[in-house]
């Protein structure tokens, strides 16, 4: 539950960051992506060993907790964002604004990495070694992880929120 709250608040911060960038943006169709495209922006987060999560990027750009600075700036309603390419599929979100705040983001479309996913779950595992995962604090050259759909997410959400402003 607390993890959910933290994530939601991070998303909120990210959204505000995105919104501000969007507002500052030029006539470009896609200010968010252009912004992320800057090599310096990305390499700065890479040095942080992280990487590309939306909240962190936006947090850095905002330089702080923007969520509390500007409450209630959106018009109430439900806004559907544009469908954005996330390589494995299209991402499309709906932003729900209540009391001027972004209260929920619903995925209308989300790419499936596991297109052939099965609902079977009772496989007997072999006698292979298992362990509880544990955070490591090491400097690494690169990080392997499943493809994140963050850029498509940002794109769709920013388009939804531009309608709410």
């Amino acid at each position, binding site marked *: 539950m607390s993890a959910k709250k933290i994530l939601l608040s991070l998303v909120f911060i990210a959204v505000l960051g995105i919104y501000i960038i969007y507002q500052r943006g030029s006539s470009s169709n896609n200010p968010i992506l252009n912004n992320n495209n800057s090599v310096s922006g990305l390499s700065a987060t890479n040095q942080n060993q992280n990487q590309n999560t939306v909240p962190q990027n936006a947090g850095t750009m905002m330089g702080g907790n923007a969520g509390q600075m500007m409450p209630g700036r959106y018009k109430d309603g439900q806004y559907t964002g544009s469908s954005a390419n996330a390589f494995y599929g299209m991402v499309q979100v709906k932003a729900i604004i209540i009391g001027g705040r972004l209260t929920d983001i619903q995925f209308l479309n989300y790419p499936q990495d596991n297109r052939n996913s099965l609902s079977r779950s009772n496989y007997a595992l072999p006698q292979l070694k298992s362990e*509880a995962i544990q955070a490591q604090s090491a400097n690494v*050259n690169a990080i392997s992880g499943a493809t994140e759909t963050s850029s498509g997410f940002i794109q769709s959400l920013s388009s939804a929120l531009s309608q709410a402003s």
Partner: protein
Amino acid sequence: MKETRLLMGMPITVDIADKNAAGSDINKIFDYFKYVDKKFSPFKENSEITKINNGQVKEENYSEDVKEIFELSEQTKKETYGYFDIIDNNGKYNPSGIVKGWAIYKAAELLENMGYKNFYVDAGGDIQVYGKNAQKDNWKIGIKNPFKTNEIIKVVYLDKNQGIATSGTYIRGQHIYNPKSRDEKMSEIVSISIIGPNVYEADRFATAAFAMQGEGVNFIEKLDGFEAYMIDKNGIATMTSNFEKYTNAKINR
């Protein structure tokens, strides 16, 4: 020399440890990824794949790259007992699941042909390494925590021009954003990372092994030259029998 760009909806990084690295060569690699996206994206109106899906291209007119991808997809489908299939529910081609690893591998080959010996290419968390890093050590790769994406939960060292790929789902796995999916059965397995002889091999088997869910690690265990690290929804990892060799920086495999 290291550079990251956002292409094909994901961050792509080229890091060349060789001292003579040239920015113009790195640009050629990014251009290659743009070419691949333009040709293979089923979401782009004018891509060859879209045209094929719309019946606008005869089979004899398919480009060499598309023919190659279709052949490799067919081969992978057989090798994975049908778990890997580029034909979606609507009967259309969506080769994204194989194109990414293939493109990274091809990009690494381009760098090799330019004369580079020590580098890696990373597209959205799937990585092909060559040679050694700037400290002349084996490339040191972290595996991302599927529950907390700013954290790494394992470190592996790759030496022999190997590849590592991870298949999984973070957002769905966490059930954070999608209230509708509460009714869906949550996946048992949230992420599987595969070390293979190259990133193309690692990626295609990661995709298939993830689709197999709990059975995926068994499937990899039976494949020579591959190791897997699989994480379930409770944060318990299961690894293939030789995986731990890769957690040792110096061991000569």
